[in-house]
């Protein structure tokens, strides 16, 4: 197992290299000039050219890639062309809100979705099952920002229960932190509730039809232990896979949610950077996202062997 993990971790390096080359090429081939944006609308071309030179953007592309790649290998993701602040520091400032949002979203999504999925499978064909599936279709179909605006309208503007926007760090108290995350987590979590609930239902339906479940039921095992201990445990592998994919997908959902609820996270950092062509931030964050993606996949693969002891890696 250890050698498997080591090999998978080593595999991260070529992935990062490919991501690095891809992101760098894409950015520098796409139209857009950070120097022109910095200089502003009233600047002369000579001023723009001087700023371009001061940022090193007039150097050959290969040279720029070489110096960025070498610095990245040493853990230096560069400095924002605009704010002059190190990318690592900017990410450090923004990672807290993003991780908080991702965690609370997954917590809400997993707890609600698995419960609904189990209930739907248990009462397959019933009104409850149909209601859960209707909810799942709605969750998939309605965009995050629409859900967000509706939640804000009722919970913040009409009833004044929760804030419209913003983020408060956990260090300022559990409730202030949580109350700023309730609406964004629900808005972002809707799609994941739908995704996980559907998979849970399908997987549970398959397991509930197995002979050992019928045997357990005949032996008089109560419904709840039968559903949770016997059925859910054996239905867990596809559910865990979907949760893993969900965590990775969350990165894109976070970008929209952070904008709608004004959460100063990594998603907004990268969107802002793209609109003004702040290359070091875009490149740095993309490399980090890719690393997180690879690590999540690895963690899921390792988790399989704990859920299902028949799965072994050599």
């Amino acid at each position: 197992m250890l050698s498997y993990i080591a090999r998978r971790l080593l595999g991260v390096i070529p992935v990062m290299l490919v991501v690095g080359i891809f992101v760098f090429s894409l950015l520098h081939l796409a139209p857009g000039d950070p120097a022109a944006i910095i200089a502003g609308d009233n600047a002369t071309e000579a001023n723009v050219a001087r700023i371009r030179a001061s940022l090193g953007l007039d150097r050959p592309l290969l040279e720029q890639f070489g110096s960025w790649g070498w610095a990245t290998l040493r853990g230096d993701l560069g400095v924002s062309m605009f704010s002059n602040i190190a990318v690592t520091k900017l990410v450090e400032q923004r990672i807290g809100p993003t991780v908080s949002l991702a965690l609370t979203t997954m917590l809400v999504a997993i707890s609600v979705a698995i419960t609904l999925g189990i209930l739907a499978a248990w009462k397959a064909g019933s009104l409850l099952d149909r209601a859960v599936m209707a909810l799942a279709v709605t969750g998939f179909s309605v965009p995050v920002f629409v859900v967000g605006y509706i939640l804000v309208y009722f919970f913040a503007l009409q009833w004044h229960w929760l804030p419209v926007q913003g983020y408060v760090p956990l260090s300022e108290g559990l409730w202030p932190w949580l109350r700023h995350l309730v609406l964004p987590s629900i808005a972002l979590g809707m799609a994941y509730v739908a995704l996980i609930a559907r998979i849970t239902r399908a997987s549970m339906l398959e397991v509930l039809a197995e002979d050992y479940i019928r045997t357990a039921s005949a032996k008089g095992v109560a419904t709840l232990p039968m559903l949770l201990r016997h059925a859910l445990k054996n239905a867990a592998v596809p559910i865990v896979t979907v949760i893993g994919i969900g965590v990775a997908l969350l990165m894109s959902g976070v970008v929209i949610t952070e904008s709608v609820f004004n959460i100063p996270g990594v998603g907004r950092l990268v969107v802002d950077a793209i609109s003004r062509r702040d290359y070091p931030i875009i490149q740095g964050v993309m490399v980090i996202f890719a690393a997180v993606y690879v690590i999540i996949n690895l963690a899921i693969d390792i988790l399989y062997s704990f859920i299902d002891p028949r799965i072994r890696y050599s």
Partner: protein
Amino acid sequence: MKTSRRKVLSAGLATAALAGIGAPYITRAQQKPPRQARMVPQGDLNVLDPIWTTQNMAAYHGAMMYDTLFGIDANFRPQPQMVGRTDISTDRKTYTFELRPGLKWHDGTAVTARDCVASLRRWQAKDGAGQHLFARVTDTPVVDEKTFRIVLSEPYGLLLDALAKTSTPLCVMMKAEIAATDPNTQITKHIGSGPFRFIESEYRPGSRVVYERNADYVPRSEPASGIAGGKRVLLDKVIWDIIPDAQTAASALMAGEVDFYELPPIDILPTLTAAPGIKVEVFNKLGSVGQVRLNHLHPPFNNLSARKAAQLAINQEDIQRAAVGNPAYYRTCGSHFACDSAMGVEDGSEVLMMKAPMAQRQARARELLKESGYDGKPIVVLHATNIHVMNQTVLVVAQQLRQVGFNVQLASSDWGGVVTRRANQNAPEQGGWNVFYTFSGGNSTASPISLFAHAATGRKAWFGWPENASIEQMRTEWALASGLEARRAVAQRLNKTMMDYVHDVKTGQWVQPHAYRGDRLRGFLPIPENIPWWNVERYA
């Protein structure tokens, strides 16, 4: 009366509950409102050097933490700000400035004449008006700790106006060692002498900017007017919350989470106006002026008849209706220098402002296009899709050009893509362009010198590269003219020449209302192209 243990407990609980429920209200009633305000500005403050960049947000930041030698008052007249006394020599070629007492940097050291000279030198390298002025400056000697001079080769009537301007880049004063930074390199230390101190430790680009009252700031004794007069700070803290989503910003204002929303989209205004406690007001009466830039270097717009055809095809009313919508906030305008400004003359704008039916205008435009020899080759129109006004305007302009016979090809991208491509002087098929649209503040547009886009120096001019010696001669004549009336007379001739030559095509003028919690804040000063936070008081 028998007192049971249960009664005592009930009474105790009831008292505690009442106290608990009432306590926050009692406390709130006793508390004074916090002396702070939260603003949602038009964009992110991602550059902290108001000289290195001409971005509006950097200018806002500059006005908060730095001070200027002079400031434009509400009547657009330059008034002394950091300067205490000004002496002008009889030949009007030497200006001697003495700083007023009590000026201190935020690190506690005194502001000196050396600091001001270094700041002037850095500013002029990046500012159009500054460059025009410094082309006539022979020396800037420091006389003593508090006094310096500007020595000119010829009298220059706009000297004080240039130092007092509100449009970006503002002529802000920095410490000499900071101002020594190359103008094309961003400063790394942020020490000003203005009414607010920038709190760098709380700065989160893309999210939050914090300013605190500068306790050492000594305001002038005159009442505040424009960016001149006494900048009395009545707030302890001003926070800029960067909220990119318009709907979220509006909701935050309605919920009272923020106090000021600088640029609410016009379509959200009715909701905000109806919300209790919110005031919607226009501070910048000159607003913004739109312009279609035609590329004078390549066919078809290197031909005057083709440019005139475009001028006839473009209908300001249709554009404004699509881009702004509410007639209360826009107007058509035949001036290159912003209507309602001191230079807002409309001489020579008969063609652009023609009231004739569109069919008649279009018929004449088709004739002109034919005269120009236009061969039907596609014209590339740069189209920024991510800025509402630009997106709407370009779609209408494209259609108007099509209607008179231009074969329009839209090159759509975000604004970042447009600013890169517009700098390309190559032919459109080699990465260049034929038409793009932009807008600028009415205040900077009002000066033939300040706005670089007015230049007509060919390949050295602003994007579009118009070349016309008469225009350049009149711009200089305007700068050297003394007195408003003399300048206005030059502006009349200049506007006519620019219209006849079709330097660019103006698409109208509009104002942008601001929305704020009128039930909490008062004292905003109507300053073009800036949001001042001095004089603003939180009263509830």
